[in-house]
């Protein structure tokens, strides 16, 4: 699946997107954040406070307990500041 990062999540991880294959057992957005944060310091920094991170699956907002099965694109970003 493709992961996309925006704003300071993107800056902390150091890239706007990447392809990943999470291992079996990573079932939810929350699981994915925990798994990603173990991939290195930059990920740990980005996900150090997972409760503030928002997520979208295939371009629709989801909660942290959303299942990722079948997702093509998952995005992580800070709370939005548009308008």
């Amino acid at each position: 699946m493709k992961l996309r990062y925006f704003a300071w999540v993107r800056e902390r991880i150091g890239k706007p997107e990447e392809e990943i294959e999470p291992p079996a057992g990573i079932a939810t957005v929350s699981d994915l954040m925990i798994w990603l944060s173990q991939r290195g310091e930059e990920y740990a920094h980005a996900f150090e406070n997972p409760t503030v991170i928002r997520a979208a699956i295939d371009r629709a907002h989801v909660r942290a307990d959303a299942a990722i099965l079948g997702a093509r694109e998952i995005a992580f970003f800070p709370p939005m500041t548009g308008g």
Partner: protein
Amino acid sequence: MAATVRLQREPFDAGSEAAKLRRGRGDIGAVVTFTGICRQDEAGAPLAAMTLEHYPGMAEAEIVRHVEAAERRWPLLGVAVVHRYGRLEPGEEIVLVVTAAAHRQDAFAAAEFLMDYLKTRAPFWKQVELAGSGRPRGKIWVDAKQSDDALADRWTPRRAAE
């Protein structure tokens, strides 16, 4: 109903967007035009510029979803939303919401509803460049405001799914 949703780098002309909604229509009795503008300061600090990052594809889809929600809620006769992205300087327009209805209450309410949701649900992020102070102070991501969440929440009896 005629709805326009557009994301662009370029400035927009609020007057001509409002005129387009009304053209050839005799049933529209009220048009509300809201323009959000880049201020010259952020939390008291002078601003050199602001950069708006967005999630292409999702930003437009999310705005369309909210326009459709507004159409279900109020008898609207036209809606236009234009949101800019990229680098903007103080005084430049950021966002435009135009709502048209037979009566003003519906146009006012729908415009406010759309703005409240754009602030908290549309995937845009503001980064500001602070001005002056000799040494560059770098770029700072604007924090989401709890007051904006509260304004968006007033349109739903329960807290929006998040």
